[in-house]
């Protein structure tokens, strides 16, 4: 957790920097840089007051949207320390480093590294590590702490460290903070001795809750309830790398590590993410999905390697991280395609196709429970496991059906004797076809629970026709024949 202030001052500019926002018609300081803060300026001060104290200021308009974007990117960048990061308000980032410390030497080392790296990126950050999110929040924001330094609280220190901090450190709404101040309750420590019962009716339950949360008396869920099993491997590089070959070598090593871990657990990856943390703080990510759980390093590595060209290395990559986003037990694998043939080689092929063409472009046909021709079959992604229950015998074979079906029936011009005869001639895409033989009609009722289009009567009469060249088409007339309106004919499919 840290506090962030806008920086990015050009070297030539030496004036104290403040950002200014319009709040209720007043020009107010939104943020101040360390130089301005030393001279007594603080956020919330009106611009006129600030000018009175310091006539020479470098003013920048506050850009909350830009700040939010930068903060989100920064939060993303913090993923190098822990997989669980999240933006907190307008100027903070949560990092849940539970279980991450073995990766570094100590909590302090991690926090110092974070602050130092943030400084390189131009962020003035303050970090605090504590047992509860509430305590870390208060300390990072309100403790006497020089910029770019860190504070580590452990166990019994929390209560003492929080006591001298202002009550605003309890993450309370501004009105409640004002009320507390009016009653002389200025520091968090002032609340320690108070009975909880009278606090609640006066200030709402928030004060007691926040206090208990900060002290660890009340659990505060900040991460998903399920424990995060880190199926994640990373490698900090001694020298930044930028060539695809170097990235691929790094990926291979990580893949071997991750796959060993998955193998021990009897799991296979369904989704993998490979993240490259660049020296300039940006994070490049590529991800893949697989048709069935796998822990074969060669197969998974190949899928990712094909996307390495999408990684822009910038000035270099200093940290590589490979993470299994979705894993499944290997035993429970199932694929609609016959398992016995697809075991060895076909599943990797499907993954490679999906990887390059996109999962939605590698399809299989599944039957649907509809007698409307265009809804009786659907092409779904091979990776979509929801249709595995469909069996081959679900395919209707009772009636002749074309092998190609137009998704949208093509209107055709038709010469047909009335009322119920097949057409004698039709014109499709400006080419006339003389009908030599025909078969039909097969009447297909549209699904009654759908509103029929005007003039369709909810039915179609289908004919199989053969033209003089022997080509066979599936045509239909929409609706019942009515003498007063010319019938509408469509070409819907092709037989072979």
């Amino acid at each position, binding site marked *: 957790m840290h506090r962030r202030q806008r920086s990015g001052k050009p070297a030539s500019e030496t004036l104290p920097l403040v950002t200014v926002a319009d709040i209720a018609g007043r020009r107010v300081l939104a943020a101040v840089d360390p130089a301005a803060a030393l001279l007594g300026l603080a956020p919330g001060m009106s611009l006129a007051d600030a000018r009175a104290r310091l006539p020479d200021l470098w003013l920048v308009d506050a850009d909350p949207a830009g700040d939010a974007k930068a903060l989100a990117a920064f939060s993303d960048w913090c993923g190098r320390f822990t997989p669980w990061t999240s933006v907190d308000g307008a100027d903070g980032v949560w990092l849940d480093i539970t279980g991450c410390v073995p990766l570094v030497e100590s909590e302090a080392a991690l926090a110092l590294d974070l602050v130092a790296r943030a400084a390189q990126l131009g962020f003035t950050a303050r970090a605090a590590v504590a047992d509860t999110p509430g305590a870390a929040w208060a300390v990072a924001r309100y403790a006497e702490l020089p910029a770019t330094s860190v504070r580590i609280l452990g166990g019994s220190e929390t209560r003492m460290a929080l006591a001298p901090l202002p009550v605003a450190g309890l993450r309370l709404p501004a009105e409640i903070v004002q009320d507390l101040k009016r009653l002389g309750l200025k520091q968090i420590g002032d609340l320690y001795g108070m009975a909880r019962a009278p606090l609640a009716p006066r200030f709402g339950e928030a004060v007691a809750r926040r206090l208990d949360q900060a002290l660890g008396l009340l659990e505060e869920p900040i991460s998903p309830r399920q424990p995060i099993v880190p199926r994640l491997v990373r490698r900090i590089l001694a020298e930044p790398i930028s060539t695809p070959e170097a990235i691929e070598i790094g990926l291979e090593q990580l893949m071997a590590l991750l796959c060993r871990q998955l193998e021990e657990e009897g799991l296979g990856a369904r989704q993998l993410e490979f993240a490259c943390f660049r020296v300039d703080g940006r994070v490049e990510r590529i991800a893949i999905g697989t048709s069935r759980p796998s822990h074969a390093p060669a197969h998974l590595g190949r899928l990712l390697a094909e996307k390495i060209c999408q990684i822009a290395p910038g000035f270099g990559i200093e940290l590589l991280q490979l993470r299994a986003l979705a894993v499944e037990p290997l035993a429970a694998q199932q694929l609609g395609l016959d398992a016995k043939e697809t075991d060895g080689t*076909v599943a990797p*092929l499907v993954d490679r196709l999906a990887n390059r063409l996109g999962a939605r*472009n590698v399809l*299989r*046909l599944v039957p649907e429970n509809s007698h409307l021709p265009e809804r009786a*079959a659907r092409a779904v992604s091979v990776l979509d496991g929801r249709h595995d229950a469909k069996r081959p015998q679900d395919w*209707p074979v009772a009636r002749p059906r074309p092998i190609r079906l137009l998704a949208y029936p093509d209107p055709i011009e038709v010469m047909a004797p009335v009322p119920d005869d097949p057409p004698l001639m039709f014109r499709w895409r400006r080419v006339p076809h003389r009908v030599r*033989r025909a*078969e039909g009609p097969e009447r297909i009722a549209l699904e009654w629970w759908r509103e029929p289009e005007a003039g369709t009567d909810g039915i179609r009469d289908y004919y199989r026709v053969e033209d003089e060249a022997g080509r066979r088409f599936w045509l239909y007339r929409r609706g019942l024949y009515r003498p007063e309106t010319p019938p509408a004919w469509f070409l819907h499919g092709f037989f072979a």
Partner: protein
Amino acid sequence: MATLVQLGAGKKDVALAALRATLRRLEGPGRAVAGVAPTGFAAIDRVLPDGGLARGALHEIMGEGADRAAAIGFVIRLLLGLAARGPVLWCLADPDLYGPGLARLGLAPDRLILARTRKDTDLLWAMEEGLKTPGLAAVLGEPYKLDLTASRRLQLAAESAGGLGLVLRQPDGGKATAAVTRWRVASAPSAAPVPGVETPRDFGLMRGRWRVSLERCRGATPTGDGYGSWLVEEHDATRAVAVAAELGDRSGASAPAIRQAG
């Protein structure tokens, strides 16, 4: 399954076919005989040097004009005998194949993996990947264009793993490709019903027919204008498994146009 009577397939023919196959194996330009996929049409298989479509090779099938359906219909009948070997990869830009129609012809749609590609480069890549993968019954592709280089790549990929490659395409001036065979498939008008013997169903759609010509065939001797041309008729469209029978065989010039029933 209907039994097909091989007309004139005496001992001599059998011996000749065996000899031809041996020759192919001996002189084949780096092409191991990876197996043969019979077309299901005895008269056609007889003309092919390996007695069927060679696996580990690329075969070209040309449609006729805008008539893709006839070529696809022919290909599907080729696949009927193959699909037991494994899934079929079908690479195309617009997957408008209709499951119920395929199922009716006896090809379980579940056997197909469709790869929808926007560009020919992707399509050819997908075909190549498929051909290198053992375990697929066949790899089909419908590229807009196929040049010599691309077809050679596919042929090499097929040779490397014994895959069966089928390229379905529109005729474009007969540009040379590295495919081992080239077929031309077109619809043909169905026969008129013989009075008193056959009665057309409903209004009278008879059995479907195709004109199938073998225009190029590596390792076979051309006769006349090509390697053979056949009129092929669907055996029984009302059955889930359609069996095709040859009607006439022009390859032997003198062969009478007799329907072989089964």
